[in-house]
């Protein structure tokens, strides 16, 4: 029994008013893989993630998640079963500020799983532990956490329902190199143990090389190339070469100066 691919995009176009962001994005994400999304500023990486998260409807094209074709005409109720299979981690965590970390993680569980409260709390504590947060952090409010802890808490909430697909918007942005490396390692561990499919938008070359299997380069409103990070970084395509050239140079400067 071969399960359908988690994400299939065909000719996706999106626009904000007069600005066209995507002009025909074709992309397929395989089951169990970790795909990186890169591209220059304004190339529509985060917008594409919003399309996959079912937050922004494309103006044209076809989006299929888990083999199910979704179109913008579908009402919210019909999307909920699909949403439950997707976890989204937002850039700043987007934790609900009036709830503790534990309550943040419990929220999707108690809304969707129909499990008794004792188990919901047990599972939420497991998620907090899985992302490597100290147990005491569970009782904290988001404002009391550091940036790295917020990201972990964001991952914990995204994982609450054990989704098959985890979407991450710049997971390591704004973290110190040690925390960023730890988060990358965490993503790798979780991904293999939980059998997750990952899609991450990132500018962090370390993340690209250590976490992703393949990287999709977005430019000129399309996917210009999809290849493993090492291969893509050798690309002759001028735009891609420039991206990796500059990023790499920045990395070496950073390493030299640090």
């Amino acid at each position: 029994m071969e399960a359908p691919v988690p994400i299939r995009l065909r000719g996706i176009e999106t626009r904000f008013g007069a600005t066209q962001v995507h002009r025909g994005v074709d992309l397929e994400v395989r089951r169990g893989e970790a795909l990186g999304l890169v591209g220059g500023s304004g190339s529509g990486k985060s917008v594409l993630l919003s399309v996959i998260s079912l937050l922004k409807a494309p103006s044209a094209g076809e989006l299929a998640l888990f083999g199910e074709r979704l179109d913008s005409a579908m009402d919210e109720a019909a999307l909920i079963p699909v949403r439950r299979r997707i976890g989204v981690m937002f850039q700043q965590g987007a934790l609900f500020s009036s709830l503790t970390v534990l309550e943040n993680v419990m929220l999707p569980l108690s809304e969707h799983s129909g499990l008794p409260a004792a188990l919901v709390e047990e599972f939420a504590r497991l998620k907090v532990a899985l992302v490597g947060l100290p147990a005491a952090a569970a009782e904290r409010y988001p404002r009391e956490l550091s940036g790295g802890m917020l990201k972990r808490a964001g991952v914990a909430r995204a994982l609450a329902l054990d989704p098959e697909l985890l979407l991450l918007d710049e997971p390591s942005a704004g973290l110190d190199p040690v925390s960023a490396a730890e988060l990358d390692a965490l993503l790798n561990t979780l991904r293999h143990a939980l059998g997750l499919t990952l899609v991450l938008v990132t500018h962090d070359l370390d993340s690209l090389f250590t976490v992703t299997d393949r990287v999709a380069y977005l430019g000129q409103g399309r996917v210009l190339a999809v290849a493993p990070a090492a291969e893509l970084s050798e690309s002759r395509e001028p735009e891609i070469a420039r991206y990796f050239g500059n990023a790499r140079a920045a990395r070496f400067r950073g390493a030299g100066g640090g």
Partner: protein
Amino acid sequence: MSAPLPPSPAAALRVVGQSLYLEGDWTTLRLSAVADEALALVPRAPWRLVAHDLTRLDSNGARLIGLLGDGGPPEGLDSRWQPLLTLVQEAVAEAPTPALPRQGLLHRIGERVLAPLASLRSLLTILGQLLLALLVLLRDPRRLRWRETLNVLTASGAMAVPIIALLAFLLGGVLAYQGGIQLRLFGANIFIVELVTLTLFREFGPLITAIIVAGRSGAAFTAELATMRGNREIDALMTLGLSPVERLLLPKWLGLVIAMPLLTALANAAGLVGAILVADGLLGVGFETFYRRVPEVVAAQHFWVGIGKSVVFGMVIALVGCSEGMRARGDAESIGRNTTASVVQSIFWVIVLDALFSILFNELGW
């Protein structure tokens, strides 16, 4: 037993002696079928677990298995689930549930008592800062942020004209109606002029204006400053060597101090129009009577008492709005809470001050 539901059945559980047979999908959204039963079995753990017919497992399912078993893998568990089970067991083992530091009743009572004091302290601090900034401004008037002040005058003054005029008009009408019915009983129709004008000018004009301005502008000041705090815009101003008090608070304060008396005068006028309309219809005391009688029997001091009060109300509303905004932490919850606190406190202080003014003016014989 029953025919399996394709593609795979929901989680199921069979108890045979000391053994638990785990079947179907032990995944989060399919666990509810066994959750209650499994929870009831947890106190008698460890059970011998058999998982030949377990079709799928996720981390939450693995956790439930961990609660039921002795920590080891169930018999017959598919080897592909093994890493997951191990990861979950390790994660839980590393993180013992902490004992929560519970706050005692006395502690909470203390906090409740001290909280208003903290807000009063912040109010006084902001007042001090504003007065200092005002002194600087008096020495060097070019430092006035006139553009910001004009913005406040537009948003808090000009934009509030329609709503204040409308509400004061209605209030004036109601006053004349209620008072007029009583006066008519005594045939003292003509005194409606004194009744309406005095209550409007001295009390209701300034009060209704203050309450609307507190709800409109005081709340807006708090929300704006709290959001700026959240974005660290206020910190940014300070690092640039710019004073948030001078740039943000003083224009708001001055703006309201100028707008409030103007709005109050407007409320007085609109209220009078409402009152005249009602008095004309109900008591036959029309515009000409008012026009003749108001300057004759109502001393100008009543008007100026109300205007004077409204200046103080404006100061208090802007002060509370700024103080609550600067106190906020900037997250979504705190913005809501401080904005509420701002409106409630402003109206509280307005009414307390109004009561004090009544006593004061009575003593002074104004």
